[in-house]
């Protein structure tokens, strides 16, 4: 206990008088910047009113009507009407539009004479999100247009409204997007990415601090006779500070921004704390195993940025090659993402999330190994 306190006092002294506070302030500012940046960047939740165009070779009542209908949807807006396909393609390459609808010459005439005119939807898949969203809006409009014609014909044939509905749409798909009914990007991306940013900062700071002890040759002075207590004492102020930061961040997300939270907020707090601790343990491991402090920071940087990919929220881990699926377990953010999305989206409790708790706790072993290595380095030096 005494060793813990003396190490804690030493660290607090360093923070207060030896300029360590600079890094604490910088990392905190970084995390705050991320919250402000991402929350304001994706304000819309889902991109809306994406620019699209119409290639109107028909110039008829139908094409104008379609243009109006498209403009009435939330997803897209018609920014230009072109006379030819080539013009629209060039506009797409200039990134002025994400999709266009081509109405060939004679469409309206063919429709009136019932010879099934073809219209064509072009969408830009080089930008997956915008391309897919604008395609979906245009496809919906095209289906509705078909449905409108069908209904008109059936009415003329003398069918009743109920019969017509049964004929036009015999089956309807009632989709429920669990806990995110508007397919809002913010809760999906940010509930994992922002704590991930925090975790990254914790990792880099830990590696840096342990590396600094190594560089300035104060390892022996710091670790003393009771390395475990000394390690805990050094880490404690940072653990506390970043855990508070993480919890405040979660309060912003789930409280202020009203992201859906079906489970208990207490579990989210627990996982945030575990994430901070796991990142610190990983940091100690890296700083312990790699003797060159600069190299350790480089390595931590590479590992830390990969965590965002390996967490699997943007691209599911189950679709990665099997070897990488196994490797994804080595990233604390992966466990955090699984646990917190379970708690927030599906209301999971500890009966299901205990696996992730264990996963995050196992990183402590890495921390202990890193510490052993540090201790043995000190002995060798002696």
């Amino acid at each position: 206990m005494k060793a813990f306190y003396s190490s804690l006092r030493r660290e607090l002294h360093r923070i207060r008088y030896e300029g360590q506070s600079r890094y604490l302030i910088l990392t905190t500012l970084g995390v705050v910047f991320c919250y402000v940046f991402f929350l304001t960047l994706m304000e819309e939740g889902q991109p809306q009113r994406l620019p699209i165009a119409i290639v109107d070779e028909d110039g008829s009542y139908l094409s104008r009507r379609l243009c109006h209908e498209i403009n009435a949807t939330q997803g897209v807006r018609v920014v230009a009407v072109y006379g030819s396909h080539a013009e629209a393609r060039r506009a797409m390459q200039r990134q002025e539009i994400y999709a266009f609808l081509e109405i060939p010459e004679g469409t309206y005439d063919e429709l009136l004479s019932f010879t099934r005119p073809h219209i064509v939807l072009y969408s830009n898949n080089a930008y997956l999100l915008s391309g897919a969203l604008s395609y979906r809006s245009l496809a919906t409009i095209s289906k509705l247009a078909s449905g409108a014609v069908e209904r008109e014909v059936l009415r003329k044939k003398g069918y009743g409204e109920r019969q017509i509905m049964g004929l036009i749409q015999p089956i309807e798909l009632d989709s429920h997007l669990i806990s995110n009914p508007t397919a809002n990007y913010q809760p999906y991306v940010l509930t994992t990415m922002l704590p991930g940013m925090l975790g990254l900062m914790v990792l880099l700071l830990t590696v840096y601090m342990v590396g600094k002890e190594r560089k300035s040759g104060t390892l022996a002075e710091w670790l003393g006779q009771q390395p475990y207590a000394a390690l805990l004492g050094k880490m404690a102020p940072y653990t506390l500070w970043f855990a508070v930061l993480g919890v405040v961040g979660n309060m912003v997300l789930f409280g202020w921004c009203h992201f859906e939270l079906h489970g208990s907020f207490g579990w989210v707090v627990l996982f945030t704390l575990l994430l901070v601790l796991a990142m610190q343990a990983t940091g100690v491991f890296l700083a312990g195993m790699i003797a060159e402090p600069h190299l350790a920071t480089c390595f931590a940087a590479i590992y830390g940025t990969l965590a965002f990919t390996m967490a699997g929220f943007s691209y599911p881990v189950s679709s990665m090659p099997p070897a990488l699926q196994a490797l994804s377990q080595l990233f604390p953010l992966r466990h955090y993402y699984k646990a917190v999305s379970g708690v927030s989206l599906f209301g999971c409790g500890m009966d299901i999330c205990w696996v992730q708790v264990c996963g995050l706790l196992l990183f402590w072993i890495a921390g202990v190994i890193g510490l052993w290595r540090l201790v043995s380095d000190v002995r060798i030096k002696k």
Partner: protein
Amino acid sequence: MKLLKDLWDIFVIEVRRVLHDKGVVLIFFIATLIYPLIFGAIYKNEMVRNVPVAVVDESRSEASRRFIHKLDATPEMNVMYHCTTMAEARRLMQQRRINGIVLFPHDYGYRLASKETARVCLFCDMSSFLYYRSVLSGASAVLVDEMEQVQLERYALAGITGEGADDLVQPIPYDDVKLYSPAGGFTSFLVPALLVLVIHQTLFLGIGILFGTTREERQTMRVIPPHLRNEGRPRVVMGRALAYMCLYLPVVAVDLVLMPRLFGLPHIGSLGTLCLFLLPFMLATTFFCMTICSYVRERDTGIVTCIFFSVVLLFLSGAVWPACNMPRFWRIFSYLFPSTHGIQGYIRINTMGATLQQVKFEYLMLWLQTALYFATSCLCLRAAKKLRIG
């Protein structure tokens, strides 16, 4: 002649400095190679296929069974569980064994038989939007197919058959053409942006480490030949930039030209256009990094700043979140970074086959940045000198 000699001197000094620093070599030549390979491996499968779903069939009718068979046959979905109640399926969802639930209400078959509109409920896992996308597109494809079948049956009962019925089912059929990446894969969309970002960030990291180390060791001025310390600043900056550019030439060639071909990413752009575009991108990036890195006091600070900005820059580039939907402030903010224009231009030239004329804005912005950051990096060198004397 003197100019060339000075440039050459600086060039040699800088190349030597880079090659003598293990960290920089790791970042410049190993990380630039490893990152694209890792991303290529991670996103190898491009699409999310065979998403496990559960089916709750309360109607137990012939129609619902046919629907389920078709669901299972789609590439997107894999019917893993047949549950009797929703509670059971929900439990499976909580345990993450499935990523979607398809529910057929008890009146599904009855409604179909009585020529009314039947309902299928779909519950999507929103923890990753790619699950949602796969589940929804799979279910929609089956729905369209199933609807057409039922519609034709119903029209036949009403006495409308053959082409007449076809005309009615879809009076205005549409074809869809997905341009530039027909399958809509995740790799073809994200990896090009990441490749450019890797170039941008590793250059930043490497220069940051170089500058940070000299500063840490109080060598900022000592690495410059004495006669250039006062008047020759632009030469120093140019000579250094030349060194980084030459060292990066093979890296850029491998990452931005070879990697898309290696991974089978779309690459329909002309190589000449790409080279012409990459020239100001590399220049702007080099000068940008040299400017920012002059403020890096320690080696590790540079690393932390760089890493921190990687994710931010990716989102600012407009490759993920459309640029036209960003708040104006962030959009203007994004113009400060060469990566924004670099990513936009690279995607459009390489993936979409745009000409230089069509990326005019990005191209001009990059040249503008080159001029601006060249000036600032000269100024920053002076500031560093002052600081040293002070």
